[in-house]
């Protein structure tokens, strides 16, 4: 391995060096600074005689005398089942004081694309215990379903609630007969933090430790004061680990990545340093492709036991869903869960706004034999009724309740109760799907039967509560 002391330029996170042998694109580079630190980086562009290198840990401390080594391989993640229970930094070095990691294998972190022909369509219902998700935006194994939030909103509480409560109900019964102490259908959790604060990190770690989840977790921590460029590596380490556990070791893996916004800022920083032509709002033109290379690493594979389910979290700058980060994410992921500022100030926990939320894989994951026969219809009807009630709220501000028809007033009441009884449940309540649907029927029974035009007539006959549901509210 040849060492060079040929750095010609240092600019932001980039270093340019002259070489006299060919260097591969994406290859890993080690740079030794005069003060004895070793920094790692990656080849961004390689031409005859000159390479540009992106340094993960930042270029602070590098000068023209630093020595550069090309390792002749692309970045790898050492993988083993023993990673479960371990905490690492954003570059994959253990920071929990535990033993060295003895890898089974070292895997390329970029990860190859899953052949679409080899995928299996995800359709196993995951019960998160959260009504607005299970009932109306159902998550399935192998889905990528991000949480779109805003700064200061309780997205972490929601993510933790999902991580704690997520199970696949049917498999419970099957697995438990095999082996008593087996985790059954619990998930292995991979947590990839990018640029979050120490305080937020503590919140996650404390919850993992309190619930014993850490044992079946792998944590990668790049914190706010860690180098920004490292953030482009952290999620790839996390996903490489996830794929290994899922597709080689048969785990059902839940990957939580937070905060994608910080990841995208890092991409923008690198793009700017390379003087690329920027795309929308200064983010690189290839950001869609780059994000897809993360998000598409979720799924199921034909003939393999495990699965990778992703819940990325992103905070929308100024709560703007058309900002490139949520926009490009929404174009790639299979839906989104929206955490809403005004519901949050109303004290709704979790403050999920179901209207702009969506789960695209819901339709195949629910229904008879999966959840319940009436699930799809109830969900559709709840949407339609809530949307109608929501609309009327604007009108009622102008004309007052008296100017509305009786029908309209019912929809207004429905919208209020929907928020206070269906969405509102608290972060510690774990509702089974039947319970969620029953709450749905309580609310729908406020409306005249004829209004339930999204629900099959037989199902109405079976579930509609004939008596006025006022009594049911008194608790």
């Amino acid at each position: 391995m040849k060492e060079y002391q040929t750095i010609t330029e240092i600019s932001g996170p980039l270093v340019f060096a002259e070489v006299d042998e060919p260097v591969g694109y994406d290859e890993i580079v080690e740079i030794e600074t005069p003060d004895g630190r070793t920094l790692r980086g990656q080849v961004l562009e390689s031409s005859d005689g000159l390479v540009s290198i992106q340094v993960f840990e930042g270029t602070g401390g590098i000068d023209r005398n630093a020595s550069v080594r090309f390792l002749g391989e692309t970045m790898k993640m050492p993988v083993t089942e023993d990673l479960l229970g371990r905490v690492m930094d954003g570059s994959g070095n253990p920071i929990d004081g535990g033993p060295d990691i003895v890898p089974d294998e070292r895997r390329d972190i970029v990860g190859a694309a899953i052949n679409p022909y080899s995928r299996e369509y995800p359709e196993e219902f995951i019960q998160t215990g959260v009504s607005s998700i299970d009932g109306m935006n159902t998550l399935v194994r192998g889905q990528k379903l991000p949480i779109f939030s805003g700064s200061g909103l309780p997205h972490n509480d929601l993510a933790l609630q999902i991580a704690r409560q997520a199970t696949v109900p049917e498999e419970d019964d099957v697995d438990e007969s095999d082996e008593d102490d087996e985790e059954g259908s619990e998930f292995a959790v991979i947590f990839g933090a990018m640029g979050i604060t120490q305080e937020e990190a503590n919140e996650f770690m404390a919850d993992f430790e309190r619930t014993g989840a850490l044992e079946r977790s792998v944590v990668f921590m790049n914190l706010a004061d860690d180098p920004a460029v490292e953030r482009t590596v952290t999620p790839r380490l996390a996903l490489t680990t996830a794929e290994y556990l899922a597709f080689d070791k048969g785990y059902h893996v839940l990957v939580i990545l937070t905060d994608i916004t910080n990841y995208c800022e890092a991409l923008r920083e690198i793009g700017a340093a390379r003087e690329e032509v920027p795309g929308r709002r200064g983010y690189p033109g290839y950001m869609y492709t780059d994000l897809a290379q993360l998000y598409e690493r979720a799924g199921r594979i034909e003939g393999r036991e495990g699965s990778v389910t992703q819940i990325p979290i992103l905070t929308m700058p100024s709560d703007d869903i058309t900002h490139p980060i949520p926009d490009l994410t929404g174009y790639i992921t299979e839906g989104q869960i929206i955490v809403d500022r005004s519901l949050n100030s109303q004290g709704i926990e979790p403050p999920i706004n179901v209207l702009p939320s969506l789960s695209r894989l819901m339709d195949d994951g629910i229904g008879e034999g999966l959840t319940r026969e009436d699930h799809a219809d109830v969900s559709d009807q709840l949407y339609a009724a809530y949307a109608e009630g929501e609309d009327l709220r604007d009108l009622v501000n102008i004309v007052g309740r008296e100017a509305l028809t009786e029908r309209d007033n019912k929809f207004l009441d429905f919208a209020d109760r929907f928020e206070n009884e269906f969405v509102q449940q608290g972060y510690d309540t774990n509702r089974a799907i039947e319970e969620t649907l029953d709450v749905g029927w309580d609310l729908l029974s406020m409306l005249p039967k004829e209004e339930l035009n999204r629900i099959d007539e037989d199902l109405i006959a079976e579930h509609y509560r004939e008596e006025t549901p006022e009594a049911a509210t008194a608790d």
Partner: protein
Amino acid sequence: MSQADTESVDEGGVIESVSGPVVTATDLDARMNDVVYVGEEGLMGEVIEIEGNLTTIQVYEETSGVGPGEPVTNTGEPLSVDLGPGLLDTIYDGVQRPLDELEEKMQSAFLDRGVDAPGIDLERTWAFTPIVEVGDTVESGDIIGEVPETESITHKVMVPPDIDGGEITSIEAGEFTVEETVAELDTGETISMHQEWPVRSARPANEKQTPTEPLVSGQRVQDGLFPIAKGGTAAIPGPFGSGKTVTQHQLAKWSDADIVVYVGCGERGNEMTEVIEDFPELEDPKTGKPLMSRTCLIANTSNMPVAARESCIYTGITIAEYFRDMGYDVALMADSTSRWAEAMREISSRLEEMPGEEGYPAYLAAALSEFYERAGKFNLINGGEGSISVIGAVSPPGGDFSEPVTQNTLRIVKTFWALDADLAERRHFPSINWNESYSLYRQQLDPWFRDTVAEDYPEVRQWAVDVLDEEDELQEIVQLVGKDALPEDQQLTLEVARYLREAWLQQNAFHDVDTYCEPQKTYRMLQAIRTFNDEAFSALDAGVPVDEIQEADAAPRLNRMGTAEAWDEFIDDLESDLESQLRDLY
């Protein structure tokens, strides 16, 4: 992709630089668009720029680890597709490598690189039956024989467009591989079932006709309000989650095309898997045969190499043209053309070309119109007729239609299905906005609808359009004063409009019955709502208060028409109940 005969290989090239999918090489003797193999692993690429001794190549596979000094070889052939029996019931990547074949060769569920595979199986034999005889004279494009390709499609074996033709000196029925000769001409030319065609040039055809037949979609809002012609073009722009893909899937499933080419361009892996899993199980309403047997899938998902995303559109349209040449009506769906445009942008910016609007290359508009121009109803060079309908999804950033891809597309296409986030949010599906959308084919298709569905089809449609327009105006007033403040006749109009929206325009793609609605049913449903309208207004005129009219319990049954299995009977009963109930009120 085409396994071009590699006689003319040039091995002289050496990599000069690598930046993502863009590689430059020196000393390569190449023409524009030649296919080359890059590096020790032989990654497939295409020449996209030549400047002096320096050749720029876009590489269709990941380039990690590839470095300067590695060799580049030129095949001397442009990027081409293999054409012949075996295209249907297949899934390809963007450069026509069969994905099942790749899985087998790579022994992995993950896409490795440096592995190539021919677009059609070169070993498999097919039963060829001639339809011409020795002594017949044939010309370019003429059909000389047939092969049962799938359950539903007969493949026509043609004289390739680049062979002039002549007198047949030998032709025989039998089992042949695609490369074996099935016919010989007196000119010495031989014809096999295999053709190759460079994807970036259109296959030849004679002039285009004005299309007069609709591509029946089985979707009420489309067939009813905004029809597309067989041979027409349509765009579906909409923000994420508004229903572009579901709309495209619905067309791929239920439209009455003979052949469907579905191009998943830079979108989700699972969406392609869904098609692979669903289509073999679904029946073509026209033939009763599995849908997959008329379908060719091209999947270059968002995480697959970006250069192959750029080419997948061309691969798709060339395959579509080949089936058109056999006289078929082909429908091509491209989801999403925006990802294709972004792939162009990405490559262009790596080439450091002068960017046009929003960083897209200056030739964006030209590339889009060239693509949509390959659609149409054509007179074929063999004297027959065939059509290609092209339906492109557009994914505008932030859902804002003023961006370059949407705008440049709208300048070309004649049907515009505008998806609306607001409608999608309230789960009004398909969320095609009836105020913004249009079809410039309406007039030319009207005679077909009159003849085939109902004599007064255009009039009934116009009635629906008028009611929806009126609702739109009334809604503005309602927003200010509330519905109760409106005069009774206007309240009734709002009620009728609500049925138009909820019972007719909405259609649930996931309901077994509702998912497909034949034009006859679309028409009858509309008529039933009109019956309600007419009876209700008569009652109102007779002095019945609007509240009482709304109480009539037959009316909400309008909402069940879509999901009714025996719809004919259901609608008959409903109409007579509406009549009797509303007439009883006065």
